[in-house]
Structure formats: structure tokens, C-alpha cells
């Protein structure tokens, strides 16, 4: 069974929500990423998203832009990330999802990418600049290899699009909590609640909410309305601030622990 599906099923059995932690692969180095994945798992993350750095990340705010720049400076590429994942798989079975802009996948070839990603131990894929309309080459390749192709919905999505994305998203569905880019501030939680409820009526897969979730309180509140809580920029900011510090792993671990604890208490 795919690790994402298994994890959501296990959590559902316990009445818990998934904590999904995002870090940029290769920030500040791929060696750090290997360490951080294990730290995040120990701190309570249920799924880990690994960002693939791209030179032109149009969906990302300054925090993740800077992280991508650091990762590219350290020589990170999709190929090297898959190598690192292969190594990691000898030490952890936590579900791993790649978040990659389309061109980094296209450069490798859609079919070859899916094959290599699954062989390395990747479970799911999010492509922030690929709406379902453009998934022609990737969707069948993902389905064939068992890679879960996760689509996104946003506050601006219409009912027609909600139905389409709900039908096609695999693993889980990523609801973007706000009209904006990563790292923006979440202001309208009631609106998120209403939209997640609408999505749940048409989606068979779990619904996870991301963008703008920065504090333990945010995480606890979103856990009350969705199946999963995705935290990206807030964790990446910790990595950025402590990147040259020997206590990097501890700091990030403590931060994630505090979010996960708040979710459980909610």
C-alpha cells in the first residue's frame, strides 16, 4: 500500500489529523535534508514534503524563494534529491512527497521522472504550476507507477473545478488556504472551513490545508477542519535562521513538536 494512503488510514483510525511538514531539499545542503527528515519524523511529522528548488518559483513567497536559492547554490538537483531519498529509505518509511515546478520534471521527462521517483522511494507529487488541464503527460505516468499525483484547489476555484480536482487528486487534495503565495498571512479561517467542507462533499481523498499556517494556534485551528495541516514557510524560516548553527536540527525539531502537540490537544 502507498505510504500516504496507509498513513491517512492509520491516523483516521486514531482520530488524528496528519501533520505535513515542508522543507526545501538541499537547504542548506542535501546532507542537512537527510538529517532534517529524520528529525521531523521524530518530532511528529506524519508526511514530509520535499521542495525541489527552481530558479523561478512563481507560487512562493520570499522565505521559500531564499531557500531555493540556498539549495541551488549548494548544487541541488532533482537527480541528487532522488539519490538522497534512496539513502533515506534505508532509515525511514515516512511518506515523502515531492513539490516540484513543472519544468524540473519536464527536463527529466515525465515518464522517466515517475519511474525514478518511485524507485527512490517517493510516494507523491505536487506540481504547483500544473493545473489538471496540463497533466496530460504526467497523470498516466504517475498512475502507472503508483505515484500519488496531488492536485490543488484555491479559494478562487469554482464548483466545476472543485469537482474536477476532487475526482482526479490522488493521495490527498491540497487546499490552498488563501488567495496568495506561500508565506502569506492566513486571515479568514471561517472561509477555509466553508471551502474545506464543500471539497469534502465531493472528494474521496483526504483534504489537507496549506499556506499561511505559521503558529501552533493556526495548526490547531486548521486541524479542527481538515484531514491534514501543511506547514512550509514557518519551518523553512527556522532552517534559514539556524542554517549555520550546530543546533539546527534541534531548533527545527522543537518547533515542529510544538505544532504537532497543539494539533493533538485541539
Amino acid at each position: 500500500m502507498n505510504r500516504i494512503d496507509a498513513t491517512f488510514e492509520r491516523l483516521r483510525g486514531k482520530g488524528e489529523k496528519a501533520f505535513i511538514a515542508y522543507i526545501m531539499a538541499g537547504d542548506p545542503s542535501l546532507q542537512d535534508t537527510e538529517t532534517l527528515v529524520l528529525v521531523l519524523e521524530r518530532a511528529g511529522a506524519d508526511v514530509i514534503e520535499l521542495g525541489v528548488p527552481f530558479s523561478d518559483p512563481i507560487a512562493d513567497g520570499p522565505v521559500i524563494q531564499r531557500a531555493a536559492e540556498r539549495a541551488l547554490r549548494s548544487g541541488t538537483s532533482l537527480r541528487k534529491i532522488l539519490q538522497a531519498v534512496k539513502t533515506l529509505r534505508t532509515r525511514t518509511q515516512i511518506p515523502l512527497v515531492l513539490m516540484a515546478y513543472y519544468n524540473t520534471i519536464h527536463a527529466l521527462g515525465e515518464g522517466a521522472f515517475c519511474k525514478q521517483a518511485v524507485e527512490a522511494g517517493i510516494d507523491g507529487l505536487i506540481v504547483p504550476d500544473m493545473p489538471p488541464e496540463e497533466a496530460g503527460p504526467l497523470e498516466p505516468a504517475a498512475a502507472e507507477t503508483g505515484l500519488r499525483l496531488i492536485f490543488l484547489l484555491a479559494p478562487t476555484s469554482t464548483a466545476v473545478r472543485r469537482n474536477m480536482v476532487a475526482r482526479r487528486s490522488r493521495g490527498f487534495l491540497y487546499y490552498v488556504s488563501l488567495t496568495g503565495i506561500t508565506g502569506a498571512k492566513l486571515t479568514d479561517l471561517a472561509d477555509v472551513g466553508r471551502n474545506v467542507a464543500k471539497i469534502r462533499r465531493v472528494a474521496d481523498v483526504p483534504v489537507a490545508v496549506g499556506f499561511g499556517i505559521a503558529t501552533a494556534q493556526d495548526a490547531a485551528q486548521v486541524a479542527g477542519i481538515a484531514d491534514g495541516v501543511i506547514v512550509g514557510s514557518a519551518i523553512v524560516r527556522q532552517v534559514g535562521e539556524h542554517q549555520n548553527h550546530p543546533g539546527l536540527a534541534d531548533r527545527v525539531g522543537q518547533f515542529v513538536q510544538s505544532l504537532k502537540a497543539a494539533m493533538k490537544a485541539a
Partner: protein
Amino acid sequence: MATIPDQHGRFGAYGGRYVPETLMPAILELEQAYLKARCDRAFQVELAHYLTLYVGRPTPLYFAERLTKRLSGAKIYLKREDLCHTGAHKINNSIGQVLLARRMKKKRVIAETGAGQHGVATATAAAMFGMACEVYMGTEDMQRQALNVFRMRLLGATVTGVEAGSRTLKDAINEAMRDWTTNVRTTNYILGSVLGPHPYPMMIRDFQSIIGREARKQVLAEQGRLPDYLVACVGGGSNSIGLFHAFLKDRGVRMVGVEAGGLGLESGKHAARFAGGRPGVLHGTMTYLLQDDDGQINLTHSVSAGLDYAAVGPEHSFYHDADRIRYTSATDDEALAAFDLLTCEEGIMPALESAHAVAEVVKLAPRLKKKHVIVVNLSGRGDKDVQQVARIKGVTL
């Protein structure tokens, strides 16, 4: 060929809509609004009104007699887009899109700009219609096109510098797309070239294709026949597709698109996407891109900010593969020499972008016979580049 793009915004394998979900509804709405406006007579009458009385169309097709003599080959005609209000063809598109934004009841427009011409054109149209306008521009470009930055500010626009990547056009588009993603409900993004997600490449081509429709009539009236060659510079590719489009079915008319050769193709410092790139996805569209093996977008170089961009419009990629348009490049030095040549021979100072097209004419015309006719798109005037040219020549103003 007139039927492209298809309903998915595809020019063969190129184009499409690779954007975040947040923008998809807005892009579909924009497409619907545009398709409606395109066949609405009232919209076309309004557009024609502003193009005639505000922009100053039709622009002349001017026989460059001295340049023709000097190169002693084909007859050279200049399509004088430099005479448009604000000094370049960009306003043809800005007026069209701002009129559309007004119909869509948007209160704010944003734009990216490289050379500053599209920013100035959009700030101008926004000022005329009383709309808020914010223009994103790489800080490297702000420095080399300081005059245009000041013009935009005089027009009441906010100019926001982008301090990322190569600090040029690519980075300005990234930031404009982020702004649009955040403010999509109130704001229209006025893209400046035949780039980005569908419907932009189609819509902007339509707005710019007036250049070729006029030129076709003018050259027929003047010469009694169609030209042998059309030449235009290609950054994103809006002035070139604008000139070429009305001639695509005329099999005898050859077309040459001139990309920025920068310091030379072998130097790696250029923006020649067809010579040095391969297909990929940037800024919402599948097209030829300058990128590395991992799909990271390369930094580009050109003396002209308007050509300094890693991607080319998807329709160009289609005509490149179909062998309908030939693409070549001119180096910084060749463009600067052409700038001097046209200035001295004709008393017309071209924009450094357009000087790349003139540089190709310098190579092409002497190889042709006197009976042959070349139409070159003089897409913009060089006033904005005077400071930059002085800097290059080591002259302190």
C-alpha cells in the same frame, strides 16, 4: 495556420496554461471576456478609436532610401512603430488590455517591464482611464532604463524594483505573477509580450497584428506586390508576430526573427533561445527556453533590456519547428553598429531592441537584388537608450 491556438491555448506542442490553481479561474475568465470582446463590434470600434486618435495609427511605412543605397541591395522599408504614442508598438497591446480590464470592472492593473516600454505604455493607458497601476521591473533594468522609470512615475504608476535572479525581465514577471496571485480578484495582469499562459499569447498577438495588416496594405499600395522579406527582433516576440501574422499565408514572403546574440553565442552570454535552448515551461507556457540540464532557467545577457529574456513566445516555437519563420541573432556590437548606422543614414534613432532587426538587414540586404523588398519593423525609438549608448561609448552626459 489561422486556427492556432486551439481551445486549450496550444500552438502545436507549445503554449498551454501552466499556472497555479489560484490563477486558473482568472485566466479562464480573462479568456471568456476577451473572446466576447473580440467579436463585439462596440469593443472593436472603441479600440480603433484610441488606436487612431490616441496612439496615432496607422504608422507610416517609410522607404529608407539612403540606407538602401548604402547597403546597395534590396529596397528597405521601415514600419515606423517608433512613431506610436509613447515610442513603441507596446501601446497597441496596452490599450487593448486596459480597455478589456475596464470592461471586466477591474480597478487596478499590473505589468512587468524589461526595457520599460511596456511599463510606460501600460502606465499611460492606466492614467488615461484613471486606473491604479503598478509596474514590476528588475533593478538591473531600472538602472539601464532610468529614463523610462521616471516616465512611469510621472504617469502616476508605482514602479517596484525586483531584486532577484538576474534582476531583469524574467524576475519582473515572477513578481508580477505573485502579485496577480495575491490580488487576482481586483487586478488584471497586463502582460507585455506574446508570452505567459493562454489567452495571453493569442490576445497580445491579436492586438499587435494590426502592424502587419497595415504594412501589408501599405506595401501593396507602394510596390504593387508583397515584400520578399520581413525582419523583426524577437524578445518575447510581440512586435515580430505583430508584423508577421498578416503575411503567414503568403507563401512567398520570408520571415526572419532576430534574437539577442549578446556577447556572441559561443560566450554563453546571450538570449538566443532557438540557437541555445530547448522546450520547457516558464511563466505559464511551454516553449523554447534557455535552461540547464536540470531545467533551471539560465541567466541571459543582452545590451537591450527588451530582448534579455530566457523564453520566447510559444507561437514562435511553433513556426520555428514548422520552418515558417527563420530565427537568427545579432550581437550587442552588431546592434550598436546598426543603431549608429540608422541614426546617421536616416536620422532615425532606433531602440536597441529594434537595432537588432536593423543589424540583420545590414547582413541580408546586400545579398539580395535591387528588385527585392524588405520590410523591417522599427518597433521602438531609441530615446530611452541614449544614456545607455553614451555609457557604452564612454561619454559622460
